[in-house]
C-alpha cells in the first residue's frame, strides 16, 4: 500500500496525527487560530467511534481530557494562549496524577487578548512554567505541516510512555499554512498503546516505576484495578498524604521522570554547514525563516541551523555539543524567551544573540540576515 499524501493546513495535520496516534476523545473550546482542529475533530472523531465534546470553557476542556484518559481513551485538546492560561489549573492535575494527554497550543500574540489573532511564539515560558508548583514540562514545536502530523503522534507516544501531559506548541503561521504532508503507510504507524499492568489489582501501585524505569501502565477506569487520580499530595497508591518525606519523594520523582528523559524526548534537525561560523537556534515558524538563511547563506561566514522540534525538557547537552564555539543567534517571535535557556546553558561569556519581534508579524529572512551580517559576523 502506498503512502497517503495530502495538501492540508498545519491544524488539520495535527488532527490527522492525533487520529493516527489512536486518540479518540477531544474536548475543547473554540479559539482562533486553533479552531480548525476542533472542527475537524467534530467531523472525524464520531466517524471512527470517537467522541468530540465542546465544553463550556478551557478549564472544563482540560479536566475532561484528563477524565477521558483515565477512562482509557487517548485524549487531547487544542487552544491558543488565552485558553492555555485557563488550562493551567487542570494541566497541573494531569502532571500530579500522571495522566497521559496532549494539549495543542496554536500560539497567537498576547498578552491577554493581544493582537488577536496574529502569530507569536510568546507562550514558550508559560508552556514550561504555567502550572503552579514544582513540575516539569514536555513541549514539542512543529515548524511545518509534516511536523504537525509527525510530532502530534510523537506527543501521544511520549505522553503514554511517561504518563505525563505533552504540549504541542504550534503558532498561527504553522497552524494555517498549507503544505504537502505524507501520512505514512497505513499500518506502519504504530503508536504506543496502553499496556496491561502485568500485576494483580492488589499488587498494583499506581505511582511507581516498572522494570523499564518508566511509570507502570495505567489501567482504565472500569477494569479490575482501582485507580485513584489525586491532585493532592499523595503516596504511591494515590491516597492523600501530608507526610513531608512522601511529598518530597513524589515531587522529585515527577520531576526526574521528565528531566531524566531528555534524550528520549529531544528532537531536532541540523541544516547547513558542518563547520559553521554562526549557529542559528530556532523553532516553529521562525525556524522556516532561519532555514531560508541556512540554505541561502550569509555574507562573511558559514551558517548552520539547529531546528529544535522539542523545547522542554531543554536539551542542554545537545546545545553545548552542536554550537562548538561559534556565535549563536536565537530568533524568536517574542521578546526573548528560549534564548534565556540558551544563555544559561552556554554561560555568560558565550557570544549569544537574541533577535526578536513581537508585533504579530513573522520574522522576515532579510531582517534576520541583516542582523547577522551587520551585528554578529
Amino acid at each position, binding site marked *: 500500500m502506498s503512502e497517503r499524501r495530502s495538501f492540508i493546513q498545519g491544524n488539520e495535520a495535527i488532527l490527522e496525527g492525533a487520529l493516527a496516534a489512536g486518540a*479518540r*476523545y477531544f*474536548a475543547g473550546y473554540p479559539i482562533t487560530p486553533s479552531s480548525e482542529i476542533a472542527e475537524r475533530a467534530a*467531523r472525524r*472523531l*464520531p*466517524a*471512527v*467511534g*470517537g*467522541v468530540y*465534546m465542546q*465544553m*463550556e*470553557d478551557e*478549564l*472544563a476542556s482540560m*479536566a*475532561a*481530557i*484528563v*477524565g*477521558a*484518559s*483515565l*477512562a*482509557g*481513551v487517548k*485524549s487531547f485538546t487544542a487552544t491558543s494562549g488565552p485558553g492555555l492560561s485557563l488550562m493551567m*489549573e*487542570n494541566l*497541573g*492535575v494531569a502532571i500530579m*496524577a500522571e495522566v497521559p494527554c496532549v494539549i495543542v497550543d496554536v500560539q497567537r500574540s498576547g498578552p491577554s487578548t493581544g493582537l488577536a489573532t496574529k502569530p507569536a511564539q510568546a507562550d514558550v515560558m508559560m508552556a514550561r512554567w504555567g502550572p503552579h508548583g514544582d513540575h516539569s514540562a514536555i513541549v514539542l514545536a512543529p515548524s511545518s505541516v509534516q511536523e504537525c502530523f509527525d510530532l502530534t503522534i510523537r506527543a501521544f507516544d511520549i505522553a503514554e510512555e511517561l504518563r505525563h501531559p505533552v504540549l504541542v506548541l504550534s503558532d498561527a503561521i504553522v497552524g494555517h499554512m498549507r503544505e504537502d504532508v505524507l501520512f505514512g503507510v497505513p499500518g506502519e504507524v504504530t503508536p504506543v498503546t496502553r499496556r496491561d499492568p502485568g500485576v494483580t489489582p492488589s499488587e498494583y501501585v499506581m505511582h511507581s516505576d516498572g522494570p523499564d524505569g518508566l511509570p507502570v501502565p495505567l489501567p*482504565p*477506569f*472500569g*477494569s*479490575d*484495578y*482501582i*485507580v*485513584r*487520580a*489525586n*491532585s*493532592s499530595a499523595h503516596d504511591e497508591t*494515590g*491516597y*492523600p498524604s501530608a507526610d513531608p518525606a512522601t511529598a518530597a519523594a513524589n515531587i522529585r520523582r515527577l520531576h526526574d521522570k521528565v528531566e531524566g528523559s531528555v534524550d528520549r524526548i529531544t528532537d531536532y534537525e541540523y541544516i547547513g554547514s558542518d563547520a559553521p561560523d554562526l549557529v542559528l537556534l530556532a523553532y516553529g515558524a521562525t525556524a522556516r525563516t532561519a532555514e531560508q538563511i541556512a540554505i541561502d547563506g550569509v555574507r562573511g561566514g558559514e551558517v548552520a541551523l539547529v531546528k529544535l522540534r522539542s523545547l522542554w525538557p531543554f536539551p542542554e547537552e545537545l546545545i553545548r555539543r552542536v554550537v562548538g564555539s561559534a556565535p549563536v543567534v536565537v530568533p524568536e517571535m517574542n521578546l526573548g524567551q528560549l534564548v534565556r535557556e540558551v544563555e544559561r546553558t552556554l554561560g555568560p561569556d558565550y557570544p549569544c544573540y537574541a533577535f526578536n519581534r513581537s508585533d504579530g508579524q513573522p520574522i522576515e529572512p532579510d531582517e534576520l540576515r541583516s542582523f547577522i551580517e551587520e551585528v554578529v559576523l
Partner: protein
Amino acid sequence: MNRGYRKYILEEKFPLFWCPGCGNGIIIAALARALDKRGVSPNEIVTTTGIGCFGKADDYLATNSIHGTHGRALAFASGVKGANPDLTVLALMGDGDCATIGGNHFLHAARRNIGVTAIVSNNLNYGMTGGQYSATTPAGVVTSTSVYGNPEEGFDLCDVAIAAGASLVARSTVYHVGVLDRVLDEALKNPGFSLVEVMSSCPVHYGRRNRMPSAVDMMNHWKRSGMPESRFRDLPADEKEGRFPIGVLHRTDREDFSSRYASIQEEAGGVRR
C-alpha cells in the same frame, strides 16, 4: 441489617476527617447504601471530587476516583462519562465547589444532560476555609466574611438545575435520611444528569454564627425546614420563609448526552457502542 454497603467504604481510613456534627458522614453512608442497592461494584464506579470539606469524600470511598481541582469535579466527570458511558460516574461537591466556583460546569453538565450523579452537600458556607459565605448562603446570614449579614442572595440550587435542563432534581437533608436513600436510588437509576442536593449541617462554622451551635440544633433546623413538596406547596406564603421542599422535585425523560452521541457516531459511520 444488610452490611453490603460497607464494601464501598474505606473503613480503615476512619476516623472521618470532618468536625463533630458534620453531615457529610451521613451522606457517604446513604450513598454507599444506594450503590449497594443498585448492585454496581466499586471498580465500575468513578467518584470525582473537587476541593472543600466534601471534596475529601473520595478519601473514604473504595471506588475509582479523581480528586481534582476546586469547582471542576463535574468537568472531570463529564470527560469520564463522555469517554465511557458504561461507568457509573459520581460528582461529590459542596456548595462552594458546585454552586459557586464550579457554577458554570454545573449549568452545562445539566444542560448537556450527561449521565453523572451530582451529590451536593450544601452546608451553606465554606467550611474548609473557616466559614465564609458561598453562593447558597441566604441573605442576612452571618459568616466569617459576612459579619454584618450576607449582602447577597443565595441560589436555590434545585431551581438552577431545573432551569438548566437536568433530567432529575432532588433534595433532602441529613435529617431526612429515608428520603435521602430514596432520592439517591432514583438519581442512580436516571440515565441523564441528576442533582441530589443534601442540606447538611456545619455547626462549627455556620451554626455557631447563626444560633445553632450544636449538632442537635442543626438537626432540629433541618427537621423543621424540609418537608414533602405537597405539604410545602400548601403552606401560606409567610410560613414558606426558611422552609423548602424535599424529595424528587423534577424529572424528565430527555435523552442523555451519551445516547445522543451514540446516534451521532452511527450517523457519522463510526461504531455504535
